[in-house]
């Protein structure tokens, strides 16, 4: 009886909870969108500063009209309204130099205007559909009709301090375009604000300026009708929408702007790319009279728009040779860096592999050769990638002989990736990394531990099968007595 009662109760409470959730979501759907509003008066107009709203408070229509009323009653009758198509507080966070990077801010003129104004009011969150009524409210309070203008027409207008005027400047905002242009647009809007401010200053008419928008530029991510009605979404569901697209575009833009990302060095045989090489950095050092002199070859080999000279490179089905030609490296007029690769079929693994046979430095007729085939190899269909390819630090390249001039050199590649065969569409194939899952050290530890565990197991087994002798036990007989005295 009790269980059915509690279950009934549970069912009622869950349905109530769902209803409440739906209501709250629907309610919040109405006022989940906010638009900021910034109001400032010109210098010389003294008004009592209004208390800004508490942080996080969303200003409703009533409150907004009371703010505006107060500002206009005490302030100037000339109102300059900058009405942007879309604006959210996130625009200020993203482009306003809010993270200590004031030089990147797109609002310098706005900031100057706010700083120099005698009173200002910043409402970061005015509930959205209510904020559309700003023009209407201003119209009512000033009892004039709005004049839509731009800076050129403003300079021709004569303003009067006693009569009220409502000057509206429509400012655009990017519509779903990529982020680059949004920044430019905001910057352009700020220019317009600056121009208007300077014109108003030159006319020396007291004014009140308001900067707001018609609608928010960012959707709240949780706001979508499906969420309210469907009863919920799974945690891992992709939340499509403006915010995510923005984030993705931001990330891609950052990737393009980051200095470390550029295409590989490509050698084309005819029309098709044959050899690909990429590295984060490439440097060579030579030992001359006891000191190491180094030269960084990265800027002349890799980078956006850098194309090194590849004369002498060749590739065919079994051999590939990439030659990078430089000039004036460490005092040598001509300096060549050559990668010699070869591929063939290996019977035991029944697979084609390619190896980087040699890395050669040729300068002034001398040739320094490093062998790389011991460590630098990969299946022929894949590319080879390694975090660090050097001949001195965990060396993968070794001098060919002990007398070779390569003993005087130190070559170092960072984040090295190479592919000499089976290149398709100038992109690297799957990268076979030089680092495996277990390092040799781990394997060694595992093998020796295994051996010792085996020994331990065997010993344990022997000890555990020792039994006390019970052949002559006689539980019914007399107990053995050991006399103390001899």
């Amino acid at each position, binding site marked *: 009886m009790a269980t059915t009662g509690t279950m009934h109760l549970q069912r009622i409470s869950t349905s109530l909870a769902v209803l409440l959730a739906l209501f709250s979501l629907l309610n919040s759907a109405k006022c989940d969108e906010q638009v900021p509003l910034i109001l400032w008066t010109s210098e010389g107009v003294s008004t009592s500063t209004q208390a800004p709203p508490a942080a996080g408070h969303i200003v409703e229509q009533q409150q907004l009209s009371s703010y505006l009323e107060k500002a206009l009653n005490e302030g100037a009758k000339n109102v300059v309204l900058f009405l942007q198509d879309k604006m959210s507080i996130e625009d200020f966070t993203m482009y306003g130099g809010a993270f200590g990077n004031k030089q990147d801010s797109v609002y310098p003129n706005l900031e100057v205007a706010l700083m120099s104004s005698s009173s200002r009011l910043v409402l970061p969150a005015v509930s959205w559909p209510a904020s559309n009524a700003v023009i209407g409210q201003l119209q009512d309070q000033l009892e004039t009709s709005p004049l839509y203008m731009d800076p050129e027409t403003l300079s021709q207008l004569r303003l009067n301090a006693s009569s009220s005027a409502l000057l509206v400047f429509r400012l655009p905002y990017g519509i779903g375009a990529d982020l680059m242009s949004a920044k430019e647009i905001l910057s352009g809007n700020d220019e317009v604000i600056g121009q208007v401010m300077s014109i108003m200053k030159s006319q020396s008419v007291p004014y009140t300026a308001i900067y707001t928008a018609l609608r928010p530029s960012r959707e709240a991510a949780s706001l979508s009708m499906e969420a309210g009605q469907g009863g919920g979404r799974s945690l891992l569901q992709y939340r499509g929408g403006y915010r995510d697209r923005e984030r993705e575009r931001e990330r891609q833009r950052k990737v393009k702007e980051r200095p470390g990302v550029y295409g590989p060095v490509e050698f084309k045989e005819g029309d098709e790319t044959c050899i690909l090489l990429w590295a984060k950095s490439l440097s060579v050092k030579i030992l001359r009279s006891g000191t190491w002199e180094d030269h960084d070859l990265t800027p002349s080999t890799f980078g956006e728009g850098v194309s090194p000279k590849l004369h002498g490179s060749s590739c065919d089905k079994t051999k590939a040779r990439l030659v990078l030609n430089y000039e004036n490296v460490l005092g040598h007029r001509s300096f060549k860096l050559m990668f010699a690769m070869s591929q063939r079929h290996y019977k035991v693994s029944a697979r084609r592999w390619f190896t980087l046979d040699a890395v050669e430095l040729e300068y002034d007729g001398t040739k320094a050769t490093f062998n790389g085939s011991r460590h630098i190899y990969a*299946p022929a269909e894949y590319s080879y990638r390694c975090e660090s390819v050097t001949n001195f630090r965990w060396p993968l390249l070794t001098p060919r002989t002990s007398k070779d001039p390569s003993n005087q050199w130190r070559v170092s590649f960072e984040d090295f990736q190479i592919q000499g065969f089976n290149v398709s569409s100038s992109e690297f194939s799957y990268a076979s990394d030089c680092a*495996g899952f277990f390092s040799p050290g781990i*394997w060694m530890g595992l*093998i*020796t531990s295994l051996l010792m565990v085996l020994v331990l197991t065997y010993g344990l087994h022997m000890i555990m099968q020792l039994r006390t002798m019970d052949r002559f036990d006689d539980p019914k007989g007399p107990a053995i007595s050991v006399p103390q005295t001899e």
Partner: protein
Amino acid sequence: MNGHAILYTGVTLAFWSTILIVGICYTIFDLGFRFDVAWFLTETSPFMWASLGIGLAISLSVVGAAWGIYITGSSIIGGGVKAPRIKTKNLVSIIFCEAVAIYGIIMAIVISNMAEVSSEHLLLIMIQKKRYSMFGAGLTVGFSNLFCGICVGIVGSGAALADAQNASLFVKILIVEIFGSAIGLFGVIVAILQTSKVKMGD
């Protein structure tokens, strides 16, 4: 099933299932080429192999000797209760077992003398031959001494008990023991051959 059987079956099952799952993963992702025994054999430090060889040489020989002495010793002491005259003569069996441990330690010292850091480090082929020879030599001498020790022990135990019954039997059984001891010697000879090849190849 008793406790031992459960433990061993559990461990074997875990081991083989790990191997199976790893193998399946390699196959599914077409990364079979990364399973590279040659890489393991060449990339691991030669000192691991050398040290394993030395360790196995001495420890396995000592295990064999100890086991042999334990078996013979208990028989001699047991038989000596009723026939005390066997004590001195049967110490020969113990000495045969001990010889096995001596072979082990000699080989361990010989092998460890080769495991020095040399400038030949650069000549990689040398290292391959050397490390595996050392490991192989250690393994050879270790295992042959292990079984030799056990063999001599069991024969020696029989010899002691037979001697307790009938004194003339001892010398006959000693011959069997000598044959048993020879196999330990074979192991030592082969191990020396393995390691000497490396020295001469230098």
